[in-house]
Protein backbone atom coordinates (compact mmCIF):
# COMPACT_ATOMS: atom_id res chain seq x y z
CA UNK A 1 0.00 0.00 0.00
CA UNK A 2 2.73 2.46 0.98
CA UNK A 3 4.57 1.88 -2.30
CA UNK A 4 1.48 2.69 -4.34
CA UNK A 5 0.93 6.02 -2.61
CA UNK A 6 4.58 7.07 -3.06
CA UNK A 7 4.63 6.21 -6.75
CA UNK A 8 1.48 8.20 -7.42
CA UNK A 9 3.06 11.24 -5.77
CA UNK A 10 6.19 10.72 -7.79
CA UNK A 11 4.08 10.55 -10.94
CA UNK A 12 2.32 13.78 -10.06
CA UNK A 13 5.63 15.45 -9.28
CA UNK A 14 7.15 14.32 -12.55
CA UNK A 15 4.22 15.40 -14.67
CA UNK A 16 4.09 18.82 -13.01
CA UNK A 17 7.81 19.36 -13.62
CA UNK A 18 7.36 18.27 -17.20
CA UNK A 19 4.44 20.61 -17.72
CA UNK A 20 6.39 23.44 -16.11
CA UNK A 21 9.40 22.83 -18.34
CA UNK A 22 7.17 22.70 -21.40
CA UNK A 23 5.54 26.01 -20.46
CA UNK A 24 8.94 27.59 -19.74
CA UNK A 25 10.18 26.37 -23.10
CA UNK A 26 7.24 27.96 -24.84
CA UNK A 27 7.82 31.27 -23.04
CA UNK A 28 11.51 31.56 -23.90
CA UNK A 29 11.05 30.91 -27.61
CA UNK A 30 11.57 34.07 -29.68
CA UNK A 31 8.44 35.87 -30.82
CA UNK A 32 6.68 34.41 -33.84
CA UNK A 33 6.24 36.46 -36.95
CA UNK A 34 2.97 37.42 -38.50
CA UNK A 35 1.30 35.21 -41.07
CA UNK A 36 3.26 35.06 -44.32
CA UNK A 37 6.73 36.52 -43.94
CA UNK A 38 8.93 35.37 -41.07
CA UNK A 39 10.58 38.26 -39.23
CA UNK A 40 14.37 38.42 -39.48
CA UNK A 41 16.00 37.87 -36.11
CA UNK A 42 19.42 39.04 -35.00
CA UNK A 43 21.49 37.39 -32.29
CA UNK A 44 20.20 39.01 -29.14
CA UNK A 45 21.64 38.71 -25.62
CA UNK A 46 18.33 37.11 -24.61
CA UNK A 47 18.83 34.37 -27.20
CA UNK A 48 22.39 33.79 -26.02
CA UNK A 49 21.23 33.56 -22.41
CA UNK A 50 18.46 31.13 -23.24
CA UNK A 51 20.87 29.05 -25.30
CA UNK A 52 23.44 28.99 -22.49
CA UNK A 53 20.74 27.79 -20.12
CA UNK A 54 20.12 24.83 -22.41
CA UNK A 55 23.87 24.28 -22.50
CA UNK A 56 24.12 21.83 -25.40
CA UNK A 57 23.31 21.22 -29.03
CA UNK A 58 23.08 18.17 -31.32
CA UNK A 59 24.31 18.95 -34.83
CA UNK A 60 23.82 16.24 -37.49
CA UNK A 61 25.88 17.24 -40.46
CA UNK A 62 27.13 16.09 -43.84
CA UNK A 63 30.04 18.53 -43.74
CA UNK A 64 33.45 16.88 -43.80
CA UNK A 65 34.45 16.06 -40.27
CA UNK A 66 37.40 18.44 -40.04
CA UNK A 67 35.30 21.45 -40.97
CA UNK A 68 32.35 20.39 -38.82
CA UNK A 69 34.62 20.07 -35.79
CA UNK A 70 36.28 23.38 -36.57
CA UNK A 71 32.87 25.03 -36.77
CA UNK A 72 31.78 23.45 -33.50
CA UNK A 73 34.95 24.55 -31.73
CA UNK A 74 34.67 28.12 -33.01
CA UNK A 75 31.05 28.24 -31.84
CA UNK A 76 31.97 26.88 -28.41
CA UNK A 77 34.73 29.49 -28.09
CA UNK A 78 32.42 32.31 -29.11
CA UNK A 79 29.57 31.19 -26.83
CA UNK A 80 31.16 29.36 -23.92
CA UNK A 81 28.84 27.10 -22.00
CA UNK A 82 27.14 25.53 -25.01
CA UNK A 83 28.55 22.14 -25.93
CA UNK A 84 28.12 21.08 -29.56
CA UNK A 85 27.76 17.36 -30.32
CA UNK A 86 28.72 16.80 -33.95
CA UNK A 87 27.34 13.69 -35.66
CA UNK A 88 28.91 13.43 -39.08
CA UNK A 89 27.86 11.02 -41.82
CA UNK A 90 26.90 11.08 -45.48
CA UNK A 91 23.78 13.13 -46.19
CA UNK A 92 21.72 10.11 -47.27
CA UNK A 93 22.71 8.29 -44.07
CA UNK A 94 21.80 11.28 -41.93
CA UNK A 95 18.43 11.41 -43.66
CA UNK A 96 17.87 7.72 -42.92
CA UNK A 97 18.96 8.19 -39.32
CA UNK A 98 16.65 11.14 -38.70
CA UNK A 99 13.81 9.22 -40.34
CA UNK A 100 14.45 6.26 -38.04
CA UNK A 101 14.73 8.45 -34.95
CA UNK A 102 11.53 10.33 -35.67
CA UNK A 103 9.81 7.08 -36.57
CA UNK A 104 10.63 5.81 -33.08
CA UNK A 105 9.63 9.16 -31.54
CA UNK A 106 13.19 10.03 -30.61
CA UNK A 107 13.76 13.78 -30.97
CA UNK A 108 17.52 14.10 -30.52
CA UNK A 109 18.60 16.37 -33.36
CA UNK A 110 18.57 20.15 -33.06
CA UNK A 111 20.21 21.43 -36.24
CA UNK A 112 20.85 19.47 -39.42
CA UNK A 113 23.03 20.24 -42.40
CA UNK A 114 22.51 17.99 -45.40
CA UNK A 115 24.04 18.02 -48.88
CA UNK A 116 20.74 17.16 -50.51
CA UNK A 117 17.97 19.77 -50.89
CA UNK A 118 15.46 16.97 -51.47
CA UNK A 119 15.69 16.03 -47.81
CA UNK A 120 14.39 19.45 -46.79
CA UNK A 121 11.47 18.99 -49.15
CA UNK A 122 10.53 15.78 -47.34
CA UNK A 123 11.02 17.23 -43.86
CA UNK A 124 9.02 20.31 -44.82
CA UNK A 125 6.19 18.13 -46.02
CA UNK A 126 6.28 16.10 -42.81
CA UNK A 127 6.06 19.34 -40.83
CA UNK A 128 9.24 18.60 -38.87
CA UNK A 129 11.04 21.91 -39.45
CA UNK A 130 10.74 25.14 -37.50
CA UNK A 131 10.76 28.50 -39.32
CA UNK A 132 13.62 30.81 -38.39
CA UNK A 133 15.10 33.66 -40.40
CA UNK A 134 18.45 35.03 -39.20
CA UNK A 135 18.91 38.73 -39.85
CA UNK A 136 22.11 38.30 -41.83
CA UNK A 137 20.45 35.82 -44.16
CA UNK A 138 17.58 38.23 -44.90
CA UNK A 139 20.11 41.00 -45.57
CA UNK A 140 22.93 39.24 -47.43
CA UNK A 141 21.61 36.07 -49.06
CA UNK A 142 19.91 35.90 -52.45
CA UNK A 143 16.28 34.69 -52.07
CA UNK A 144 17.15 31.56 -54.04
CA UNK A 145 19.34 30.47 -51.13
CA UNK A 146 16.62 30.20 -48.54
CA UNK A 147 13.17 28.73 -48.26
CA UNK A 148 10.36 31.33 -48.64
CA UNK A 149 8.83 30.02 -45.39
CA UNK A 150 12.26 30.27 -43.68
CA UNK A 151 12.27 26.54 -42.97
CA UNK A 152 15.77 25.96 -44.34
CA UNK A 153 18.75 28.02 -45.49
CA UNK A 154 21.52 27.09 -47.90
CA UNK A 155 24.71 27.04 -45.87
CA UNK A 156 27.25 26.07 -48.50
CA UNK A 157 27.44 25.26 -52.17
CA UNK A 158 29.26 22.13 -53.29
CA UNK A 159 30.51 21.06 -56.67
CA UNK A 160 31.46 17.57 -57.77
CA UNK A 161 34.10 17.93 -60.50
CA UNK A 162 36.59 15.51 -62.02
CA UNK A 163 40.06 15.54 -60.47
CA UNK A 164 43.32 13.70 -61.03
CA UNK A 165 46.68 12.93 -59.48
CA UNK A 166 49.33 15.02 -61.24
CA UNK A 167 52.02 12.38 -60.68
CA UNK A 168 50.01 9.65 -62.37
CA UNK A 169 48.43 11.54 -65.26
CA UNK A 170 50.48 13.38 -67.86
CA UNK A 171 49.37 16.90 -68.73
CA UNK A 172 48.39 16.04 -72.31
CA UNK A 173 46.30 13.03 -71.21
CA UNK A 174 44.16 14.89 -68.68
CA UNK A 175 40.48 14.00 -69.18
CA UNK A 176 38.39 17.04 -70.06
CA UNK A 177 34.88 15.62 -69.87
CA UNK A 178 32.78 12.85 -68.40
CA UNK A 179 32.57 11.25 -71.83
CA UNK A 180 36.37 11.24 -71.95
CA UNK A 181 36.46 8.96 -68.91
CA UNK A 182 34.94 6.15 -70.98
CA UNK A 183 38.21 5.82 -72.91
CA UNK A 184 39.66 2.30 -72.33
CA UNK A 185 42.94 3.80 -71.13
CA UNK A 186 41.16 4.79 -67.89
CA UNK A 187 40.06 1.23 -67.09
CA UNK A 188 41.07 0.37 -63.53
CA UNK A 189 42.21 3.92 -62.86
CA UNK A 190 38.99 5.54 -61.72
CA UNK A 191 37.51 6.03 -58.26
CA UNK A 192 33.93 7.06 -57.59
CA UNK A 193 31.63 7.69 -54.61
CA UNK A 194 28.16 6.24 -53.96
CA UNK A 195 24.78 8.04 -54.15
CA UNK A 196 23.31 5.89 -51.38
CA UNK A 197 25.70 7.44 -48.87
CA UNK A 198 26.52 10.93 -50.10
CA UNK A 199 24.06 13.72 -50.87
CA UNK A 200 26.56 15.44 -53.16
CA UNK A 201 26.88 12.28 -55.22
CA UNK A 202 23.13 11.69 -55.25
CA UNK A 203 22.69 15.09 -56.84
CA UNK A 204 25.64 14.51 -59.17
CA UNK A 205 24.23 11.14 -60.28
CA UNK A 206 20.81 12.61 -61.04
CA UNK A 207 22.28 15.50 -62.98
CA UNK A 208 24.79 13.37 -64.92
CA UNK A 209 22.11 10.79 -65.75
CA UNK A 210 19.86 13.58 -66.95
CA UNK A 211 22.54 15.13 -69.19
CA UNK A 212 24.30 11.99 -70.41
CA UNK A 213 21.75 9.24 -69.87
CA UNK A 214 21.99 6.07 -67.80
CA UNK A 215 23.93 4.38 -70.63
CA UNK A 216 26.84 6.54 -69.50
CA UNK A 217 26.88 4.82 -66.12
CA UNK A 218 26.51 1.40 -67.71
CA UNK A 219 29.59 2.07 -69.81
CA UNK A 220 31.42 3.57 -66.82
CA UNK A 221 30.75 0.42 -64.78
CA UNK A 222 32.81 -1.54 -67.31
CA UNK A 223 35.85 0.56 -66.43
CA UNK A 224 36.44 -1.38 -63.16
CA UNK A 225 35.81 1.67 -61.04
CA UNK A 226 36.89 1.60 -57.38
CA UNK A 227 33.66 2.25 -55.52
CA UNK A 228 33.93 4.16 -52.25
CA UNK A 229 31.16 5.62 -50.12
CA UNK A 230 31.75 9.26 -49.29
CA UNK A 231 32.42 12.21 -51.58
CA UNK A 232 35.27 13.02 -49.19
CA UNK A 233 36.90 9.63 -49.89
CA UNK A 234 37.55 10.11 -53.61
CA UNK A 235 39.93 13.09 -53.23
CA UNK A 236 41.75 11.13 -50.53
CA UNK A 237 42.17 8.15 -52.84
CA UNK A 238 43.64 10.18 -55.68
CA UNK A 239 45.90 12.14 -53.33
CA UNK A 240 47.21 8.78 -52.03
CA UNK A 241 47.82 7.68 -55.58
CA UNK A 242 45.56 4.67 -55.24
CA UNK A 243 43.69 5.67 -58.39
CA UNK A 244 44.60 8.29 -60.98
CA UNK A 245 41.28 10.02 -61.61
CA UNK A 246 38.18 10.70 -59.53
CA UNK A 247 34.90 10.69 -61.42
CA UNK A 248 33.04 12.63 -58.74
CA UNK A 249 33.66 13.85 -55.22
CA UNK A 250 34.11 16.88 -53.03
CA UNK A 251 35.69 19.59 -55.20
CA UNK A 252 36.58 21.65 -52.16
CA UNK A 253 38.76 18.86 -50.77
CA UNK A 254 40.75 18.77 -54.00
CA UNK A 255 41.30 22.52 -53.68
CA UNK A 256 42.32 22.08 -50.03
CA UNK A 257 44.77 19.28 -50.82
CA UNK A 258 46.24 21.18 -53.75
CA UNK A 259 46.89 24.20 -51.54
CA UNK A 260 48.51 21.91 -48.97
CA UNK A 261 50.92 20.81 -51.68
CA UNK A 262 49.48 17.39 -52.55
CA UNK A 263 49.67 16.31 -56.20
CA UNK A 264 46.04 16.80 -57.20
CA UNK A 265 44.35 19.04 -59.74
CA UNK A 266 40.73 19.83 -60.49
CA UNK A 267 39.02 19.56 -63.89
CA UNK A 268 35.70 21.24 -64.63
CA UNK A 269 34.10 18.85 -67.15
CA UNK A 270 32.90 20.14 -70.54
CA UNK A 271 29.36 18.85 -70.02
CA UNK A 272 29.05 20.93 -66.85
CA UNK A 273 29.97 20.40 -63.20
CA UNK A 274 27.31 18.80 -60.97
CA UNK A 275 26.12 21.06 -58.19
CA UNK A 276 24.66 20.45 -54.76
CA UNK A 277 23.52 23.20 -52.44
CA UNK A 278 23.72 22.17 -48.82
CA UNK A 279 20.89 23.48 -46.63
CA UNK A 280 20.65 23.63 -42.84
CA UNK A 281 17.43 23.51 -40.85
CA UNK A 282 16.16 23.54 -37.28
CA UNK A 283 13.72 20.90 -36.10
CA UNK A 284 10.44 21.85 -34.49
CA UNK A 285 10.84 19.14 -31.86
CA UNK A 286 14.46 20.06 -31.13
CA UNK A 287 15.36 19.41 -27.48
CA UNK A 288 17.42 22.63 -27.34
CA UNK A 289 15.48 25.12 -29.48
CA UNK A 290 17.30 28.27 -28.38
CA UNK A 291 20.76 26.81 -28.81
CA UNK A 292 19.60 25.57 -32.21
CA UNK A 293 18.49 29.05 -33.27
CA UNK A 294 21.70 30.62 -31.98
CA UNK A 295 23.78 28.09 -33.91
CA UNK A 296 21.74 28.48 -37.10
CA UNK A 297 21.96 32.25 -36.85
CA UNK A 298 25.70 32.24 -36.16
CA UNK A 299 26.52 29.65 -38.82
CA UNK A 300 25.17 31.89 -41.58
CA UNK A 301 26.85 35.07 -40.40
CA UNK A 302 29.87 36.60 -42.07
CA UNK A 303 32.61 35.13 -39.84
CA UNK A 304 31.79 31.40 -40.12
CA UNK A 305 30.93 31.79 -43.80
CA UNK A 306 34.36 33.35 -44.31
CA UNK A 307 35.91 30.34 -42.49
CA UNK A 308 33.90 28.16 -44.89
CA UNK A 309 35.55 29.85 -47.84
CA UNK A 310 39.04 30.36 -46.42
CA UNK A 311 39.55 27.14 -44.52
CA UNK A 312 37.09 24.61 -45.94
CA UNK A 313 37.44 26.00 -49.48
CA UNK A 314 33.76 25.62 -50.23
CA UNK A 315 31.48 28.16 -51.88
CA UNK A 316 29.32 30.41 -49.74
CA UNK A 317 25.96 32.03 -50.58
CA UNK A 318 26.81 35.03 -48.34
CA UNK A 319 27.25 38.11 -50.56
CA UNK A 320 29.85 39.81 -48.35
CA UNK A 321 32.24 36.90 -48.28
CA UNK A 322 35.58 37.34 -50.05
CA UNK A 323 36.70 34.55 -52.36
CA UNK A 324 40.39 33.58 -52.25
CA UNK A 325 42.29 34.22 -55.48
CA UNK A 326 43.44 31.24 -57.48
CA UNK A 327 40.12 29.38 -57.37
CA UNK A 328 37.52 29.72 -60.08
CA UNK A 329 34.50 31.72 -58.95
CA UNK A 330 31.19 29.90 -58.98
CA UNK A 331 29.92 32.25 -61.67
CA UNK A 332 32.80 31.25 -63.97
CA UNK A 333 32.11 27.52 -63.85
CA UNK A 334 29.69 25.83 -66.21
CA UNK A 335 27.34 24.20 -63.72
CA UNK A 336 24.71 21.55 -64.19
CA UNK A 337 21.26 22.52 -63.04
CA UNK A 338 20.13 21.33 -59.59
CA UNK A 339 16.71 19.63 -59.28
CA UNK A 340 15.72 18.75 -55.71
CA UNK A 341 12.15 17.82 -56.65
CA UNK A 342 13.42 15.20 -59.08
CA UNK A 343 15.85 13.90 -56.45
CA UNK A 344 13.01 13.54 -53.99
CA UNK A 345 10.77 11.74 -56.45
CA UNK A 346 13.33 9.46 -58.06
CA UNK A 347 15.95 9.11 -55.30
CA UNK A 348 15.03 5.52 -54.45
CA UNK A 349 14.99 4.53 -58.09
CA UNK A 350 18.39 6.17 -58.64
CA UNK A 351 19.94 4.24 -55.76
CA UNK A 352 18.44 0.94 -56.93
CA UNK A 353 19.50 1.44 -60.53
CA UNK A 354 23.00 2.50 -59.49
CA UNK A 355 23.35 -0.57 -57.25
CA UNK A 356 22.25 -2.75 -60.14
CA UNK A 357 24.77 -1.25 -62.54
CA UNK A 358 27.74 -1.10 -60.20
CA UNK A 359 26.83 -4.26 -58.26
CA UNK A 360 27.29 -2.61 -54.84
Amino acid at each position, binding site marked *: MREVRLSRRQLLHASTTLAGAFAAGKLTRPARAQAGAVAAEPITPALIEAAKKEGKLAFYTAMDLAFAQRLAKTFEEKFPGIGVRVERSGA*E*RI*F*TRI*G*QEYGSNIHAVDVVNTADQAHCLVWKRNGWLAPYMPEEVAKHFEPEYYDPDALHITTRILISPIAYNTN*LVKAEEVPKSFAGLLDPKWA*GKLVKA*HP*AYSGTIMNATLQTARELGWEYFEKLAKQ*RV*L*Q*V*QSATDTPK*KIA*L*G*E*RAVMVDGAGYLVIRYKEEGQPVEIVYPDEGTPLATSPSAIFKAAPNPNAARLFQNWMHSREPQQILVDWARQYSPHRLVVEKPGVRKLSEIKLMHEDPEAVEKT*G*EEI*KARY*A*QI*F*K*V
Partner: protein
Amino acid sequence: MTIALPAERTAPTYKIDLSWPILILFAAVLCVLILLPMSWLIYYSLVDRSGAFTLDNFKTLVTDPVFVDPLTTTVILATSSSVICCAFAAPMGWLVARTDMPLRRTVRALVTASFVTPPFLGAIAWELLAAPNSGLLNKVYRAVTGAPQDEHLFNIYSLAGLIFVISAYTFPYVFVLIANALDRIPGDLEDASAILGARTWTTARRITIPLALPALLAGAIVAFLQAMTLFGSPAILAIPAGFHTMTTKIWSLFNYPPKPELAAAASVPLLVLTVFLLRAEHFILGRRGY
Protein backbone atom coordinates in the same frame (compact mmCIF):
# COMPACT_ATOMS: atom_id res chain seq x y z
CA MET B 1 24.74 -44.51 33.61
CA THR B 2 23.04 -42.80 30.84
CA ILE B 3 23.75 -39.24 30.07
CA ALA B 4 20.94 -37.49 28.40
CA LEU B 5 22.05 -34.99 25.88
CA PRO B 6 20.13 -31.78 25.98
CA ALA B 7 17.49 -31.72 23.31
CA GLU B 8 18.72 -29.92 20.28
CA ARG B 9 16.97 -26.71 19.85
CA THR B 10 16.55 -26.42 16.18
CA ALA B 11 15.71 -22.84 15.38
CA PRO B 12 12.94 -22.74 12.82
CA THR B 13 14.56 -21.93 9.47
CA TYR B 14 12.65 -19.26 7.64
CA LYS B 15 15.11 -19.20 4.70
CA ILE B 16 13.32 -18.66 1.42
CA ASP B 17 14.45 -21.00 -1.32
CA LEU B 18 15.99 -18.45 -3.71
CA SER B 19 16.93 -20.91 -6.42
CA TRP B 20 13.55 -20.82 -8.16
CA PRO B 21 13.11 -17.02 -8.38
CA ILE B 22 16.70 -16.62 -9.61
CA LEU B 23 16.15 -19.26 -12.26
CA ILE B 24 12.98 -17.56 -13.40
CA LEU B 25 14.74 -14.18 -13.43
CA PHE B 26 17.56 -15.49 -15.60
CA ALA B 27 15.11 -17.22 -17.90
CA ALA B 28 13.17 -13.98 -18.27
CA VAL B 29 16.34 -11.99 -19.01
CA LEU B 30 17.44 -14.55 -21.59
CA CYS B 31 14.01 -14.51 -23.16
CA VAL B 32 14.11 -10.74 -23.52
CA LEU B 33 17.69 -10.65 -24.77
CA ILE B 34 17.48 -13.56 -27.19
CA LEU B 35 13.96 -14.78 -27.93
CA LEU B 36 12.43 -11.35 -28.37
CA PRO B 37 14.80 -10.08 -31.11
CA MET B 38 14.79 -13.44 -32.86
CA SER B 39 11.03 -13.72 -32.94
CA TRP B 40 10.83 -10.12 -34.19
CA LEU B 41 13.25 -11.10 -36.95
CA ILE B 42 11.15 -14.11 -37.93
CA TYR B 43 7.99 -11.99 -37.82
CA TYR B 44 9.45 -9.30 -40.08
CA SER B 45 10.74 -11.84 -42.57
CA LEU B 46 7.26 -13.29 -43.03
CA VAL B 47 5.31 -10.07 -43.58
CA ASP B 48 5.30 -7.42 -46.27
CA ARG B 49 5.01 -3.62 -46.03
CA SER B 50 1.35 -3.67 -45.05
CA GLY B 51 1.76 -6.41 -42.44
CA ALA B 52 0.15 -9.23 -44.39
CA PHE B 53 1.69 -12.71 -44.27
CA THR B 54 3.85 -13.44 -47.32
CA LEU B 55 6.66 -15.72 -48.43
CA ASP B 56 7.81 -13.23 -51.09
CA ASN B 57 10.78 -12.09 -49.03
CA PHE B 58 12.24 -15.58 -49.04
CA LYS B 59 11.34 -16.04 -52.69
CA THR B 60 13.30 -12.88 -53.55
CA LEU B 61 16.14 -14.14 -51.38
CA VAL B 62 16.64 -17.35 -53.33
CA THR B 63 15.84 -16.15 -56.83
CA ASP B 64 17.20 -12.61 -57.13
CA PRO B 65 20.93 -12.72 -57.90
CA VAL B 66 21.22 -9.48 -55.96
CA PHE B 67 20.77 -11.65 -52.83
CA VAL B 68 22.02 -15.04 -53.98
CA ASP B 69 25.47 -13.70 -54.90
CA PRO B 70 26.20 -12.20 -51.48
CA LEU B 71 24.96 -15.38 -49.80
CA THR B 72 27.28 -17.55 -51.89
CA THR B 73 30.14 -15.13 -51.29
CA THR B 74 29.52 -15.20 -47.54
CA VAL B 75 29.51 -19.00 -47.40
CA ILE B 76 32.72 -19.21 -49.44
CA LEU B 77 34.26 -16.50 -47.30
CA ALA B 78 33.35 -18.13 -44.00
CA THR B 79 34.38 -21.64 -45.03
CA SER B 80 37.73 -20.56 -46.48
CA SER B 81 38.42 -18.38 -43.50
CA SER B 82 37.62 -21.16 -41.08
CA VAL B 83 39.79 -23.69 -42.91
CA ILE B 84 42.73 -21.27 -43.17
CA CYS B 85 42.42 -20.32 -39.51
CA CYS B 86 42.47 -23.96 -38.41
CA ALA B 87 45.32 -24.80 -40.75
CA PHE B 88 47.45 -22.04 -39.24
CA ALA B 89 46.29 -21.86 -35.66
CA ALA B 90 46.21 -25.59 -34.88
CA PRO B 91 49.89 -26.33 -35.59
CA MET B 92 50.81 -23.02 -33.95
CA GLY B 93 48.82 -23.96 -30.85
CA TRP B 94 50.45 -27.38 -30.75
CA LEU B 95 53.92 -25.90 -31.14
CA VAL B 96 53.35 -23.35 -28.41
CA ALA B 97 51.63 -25.64 -25.93
CA ARG B 98 53.28 -28.98 -26.54
CA THR B 99 56.84 -28.43 -27.72
CA ASP B 100 59.92 -26.59 -26.54
CA MET B 101 60.00 -24.21 -29.49
CA PRO B 102 61.93 -21.04 -28.60
CA LEU B 103 59.99 -17.75 -28.34
CA ARG B 104 56.84 -19.56 -27.23
CA ARG B 105 55.83 -16.71 -24.97
CA THR B 106 56.47 -14.09 -27.66
CA VAL B 107 54.28 -15.96 -30.11
CA ARG B 108 51.51 -16.17 -27.52
CA ALA B 109 51.79 -12.44 -26.83
CA LEU B 110 51.71 -11.54 -30.51
CA VAL B 111 48.67 -13.71 -31.12
CA THR B 112 46.92 -12.00 -28.21
CA ALA B 113 47.77 -8.65 -29.81
CA SER B 114 46.07 -9.84 -32.97
CA PHE B 115 43.12 -10.97 -30.85
CA VAL B 116 42.50 -7.53 -29.41
CA THR B 117 42.91 -5.67 -32.71
CA PRO B 118 39.46 -4.79 -34.07
CA PRO B 119 39.08 -6.42 -37.52
CA PHE B 120 37.93 -3.06 -38.87
CA LEU B 121 41.24 -1.48 -37.91
CA GLY B 122 43.12 -4.43 -39.34
CA ALA B 123 41.32 -4.00 -42.66
CA ILE B 124 42.36 -0.35 -42.85
CA ALA B 125 45.93 -1.28 -41.98
CA TRP B 126 46.05 -3.92 -44.70
CA GLU B 127 44.50 -1.45 -47.10
CA LEU B 128 47.44 0.85 -46.48
CA LEU B 129 49.83 -2.03 -47.01
CA ALA B 130 48.36 -3.92 -49.91
CA ALA B 131 46.22 -1.53 -51.96
CA PRO B 132 47.18 -2.20 -55.57
CA ASN B 133 48.56 1.24 -56.37
CA SER B 134 49.24 3.08 -53.14
CA GLY B 135 49.97 0.12 -50.87
CA LEU B 136 53.42 0.08 -49.27
CA LEU B 137 54.12 -3.54 -50.11
CA ASN B 138 53.29 -3.00 -53.74
CA LYS B 139 55.43 0.13 -53.85
CA VAL B 140 58.36 -1.84 -52.46
CA TYR B 141 57.72 -4.61 -55.01
CA ARG B 142 57.73 -2.09 -57.85
CA ALA B 143 60.87 -0.42 -56.55
CA VAL B 144 62.71 -3.73 -56.17
CA THR B 145 61.69 -5.37 -59.43
CA GLY B 146 61.31 -2.26 -61.55
CA ALA B 147 57.79 -3.26 -62.60
CA PRO B 148 55.65 -0.60 -64.30
CA GLN B 149 53.18 1.55 -62.37
CA ASP B 150 50.19 -0.64 -63.20
CA GLU B 151 51.54 -3.89 -61.86
CA HIS B 152 51.06 -5.00 -58.31
CA LEU B 153 51.77 -8.09 -56.27
CA PHE B 154 48.86 -7.89 -53.87
CA ASN B 155 45.38 -6.58 -54.40
CA ILE B 156 43.59 -6.26 -51.11
CA TYR B 157 40.39 -5.22 -52.91
CA SER B 158 39.39 -8.76 -53.83
CA LEU B 159 37.70 -11.81 -52.30
CA ALA B 160 41.12 -13.36 -51.64
CA GLY B 161 42.24 -10.16 -49.95
CA LEU B 162 39.14 -10.09 -47.79
CA ILE B 163 39.54 -13.76 -46.81
CA PHE B 164 43.17 -13.09 -45.88
CA VAL B 165 42.34 -10.09 -43.70
CA ILE B 166 39.45 -11.85 -41.97
CA SER B 167 41.58 -14.93 -41.30
CA ALA B 168 44.40 -12.79 -39.93
CA TYR B 169 42.13 -11.42 -37.20
CA THR B 170 40.06 -14.55 -36.57
CA PHE B 171 42.78 -17.18 -36.16
CA PRO B 172 43.49 -16.06 -32.55
CA TYR B 173 40.13 -17.54 -31.54
CA VAL B 174 41.19 -20.98 -32.80
CA PHE B 175 44.69 -20.58 -31.40
CA VAL B 176 43.53 -19.68 -27.92
CA LEU B 177 41.03 -22.55 -27.80
CA ILE B 178 43.55 -25.13 -28.97
CA ALA B 179 46.49 -23.86 -26.94
CA ASN B 180 44.42 -23.79 -23.76
CA ALA B 181 42.95 -27.23 -24.44
CA LEU B 182 46.38 -28.69 -25.05
CA ASP B 183 47.72 -26.99 -21.93
CA ARG B 184 45.08 -28.75 -19.92
CA ILE B 185 45.52 -32.21 -21.37
CA PRO B 186 48.14 -34.05 -19.28
CA GLY B 187 51.06 -35.35 -21.23
CA ASP B 188 50.82 -38.89 -19.80
CA LEU B 189 49.08 -40.39 -22.78
CA GLU B 190 51.63 -38.93 -25.19
CA ASP B 191 54.50 -40.09 -22.99
CA ALA B 192 52.97 -43.56 -22.91
CA SER B 193 52.68 -43.51 -26.67
CA ALA B 194 56.35 -42.45 -27.02
CA ILE B 195 57.44 -45.18 -24.60
CA LEU B 196 55.60 -47.74 -26.68
CA GLY B 197 57.64 -46.65 -29.68
CA ALA B 198 55.46 -44.25 -31.63
CA ARG B 199 57.18 -41.50 -33.59
CA THR B 200 56.24 -37.82 -33.09
CA TRP B 201 53.85 -37.69 -36.01
CA THR B 202 52.14 -40.97 -35.05
CA THR B 203 51.63 -39.66 -31.51
CA ALA B 204 50.29 -36.40 -32.83
CA ARG B 205 47.95 -38.14 -35.26
CA ARG B 206 46.59 -40.85 -32.97
CA ILE B 207 46.70 -39.24 -29.54
CA THR B 208 46.95 -35.47 -29.59
CA ILE B 209 44.56 -34.66 -32.43
CA PRO B 210 41.67 -36.81 -31.17
CA LEU B 211 42.18 -35.31 -27.71
CA ALA B 212 42.18 -31.79 -29.12
CA LEU B 213 39.31 -32.43 -31.54
CA PRO B 214 36.58 -30.80 -29.43
CA ALA B 215 38.66 -27.63 -29.13
CA LEU B 216 39.53 -27.75 -32.81
CA LEU B 217 35.92 -28.11 -33.86
CA ALA B 218 34.80 -25.41 -31.48
CA GLY B 219 37.51 -23.14 -32.87
CA ALA B 220 36.54 -23.90 -36.45
CA ILE B 221 32.93 -23.06 -35.72
CA VAL B 222 33.81 -19.85 -33.92
CA ALA B 223 36.02 -18.80 -36.84
CA PHE B 224 33.24 -19.63 -39.31
CA LEU B 225 30.66 -17.64 -37.40
CA GLN B 226 33.00 -14.72 -36.86
CA ALA B 227 33.88 -14.54 -40.56
CA MET B 228 30.23 -14.89 -41.52
CA THR B 229 29.02 -12.05 -39.32
CA LEU B 230 31.85 -9.56 -39.70
CA PHE B 231 30.76 -6.21 -41.11
CA GLY B 232 33.72 -3.83 -40.78
CA SER B 233 36.22 -5.63 -42.98
CA PRO B 234 33.79 -6.36 -45.83
CA ALA B 235 32.54 -2.78 -45.74
CA ILE B 236 36.07 -1.49 -46.23
CA LEU B 237 37.36 -4.08 -48.69
CA ALA B 238 34.43 -5.72 -50.45
CA ILE B 239 32.49 -2.66 -51.55
CA PRO B 240 35.44 -1.04 -53.33
CA ALA B 241 36.09 -4.43 -54.92
CA GLY B 242 32.55 -4.44 -56.27
CA PHE B 243 30.81 -7.21 -54.33
CA HIS B 244 28.60 -7.50 -51.29
CA THR B 245 28.66 -9.97 -48.45
CA MET B 246 25.47 -10.80 -46.60
CA THR B 247 26.25 -8.36 -43.80
CA THR B 248 26.94 -5.40 -46.09
CA LYS B 249 23.86 -6.32 -48.15
CA ILE B 250 21.66 -6.25 -45.05
CA TRP B 251 23.19 -2.89 -44.12
CA SER B 252 22.51 -1.52 -47.59
CA LEU B 253 18.84 -2.50 -47.26
CA PHE B 254 18.50 0.13 -44.56
CA ASN B 255 19.17 2.98 -46.96
CA TYR B 256 16.15 5.22 -47.20
CA PRO B 257 13.51 3.91 -47.67
CA PRO B 258 14.41 1.05 -45.33
CA LYS B 259 13.35 -2.49 -46.23
CA PRO B 260 13.36 -4.30 -42.89
CA GLU B 261 11.36 -7.25 -44.27
CA LEU B 262 14.02 -8.13 -46.81
CA ALA B 263 16.76 -7.48 -44.25
CA ALA B 264 15.08 -9.85 -41.79
CA ALA B 265 14.66 -12.50 -44.49
CA ALA B 266 18.34 -12.08 -45.41
CA SER B 267 19.37 -12.69 -41.79
CA VAL B 268 17.49 -15.98 -41.55
CA PRO B 269 20.03 -18.01 -43.58
CA LEU B 270 22.78 -16.79 -41.25
CA LEU B 271 20.71 -17.91 -38.28
CA VAL B 272 19.97 -21.29 -39.85
CA LEU B 273 23.65 -21.85 -40.66
CA THR B 274 24.62 -21.11 -37.08
CA VAL B 275 22.10 -23.55 -35.63
CA PHE B 276 23.10 -26.18 -38.19
CA LEU B 277 26.78 -25.85 -37.33
CA LEU B 278 26.16 -26.14 -33.61
CA ARG B 279 24.05 -29.28 -34.12
CA ALA B 280 26.74 -30.72 -36.40
CA GLU B 281 29.37 -30.13 -33.72
CA HIS B 282 27.19 -31.87 -31.16
CA PHE B 283 26.67 -34.78 -33.53
CA ILE B 284 30.38 -35.19 -34.25
CA LEU B 285 31.56 -34.91 -30.69
CA GLY B 286 28.68 -36.62 -28.95
CA ARG B 287 29.17 -35.84 -25.31
CA ARG B 288 32.93 -35.79 -25.42
CA GLY B 289 34.32 -32.65 -23.91
CA TYR B 290 37.61 -33.59 -22.27
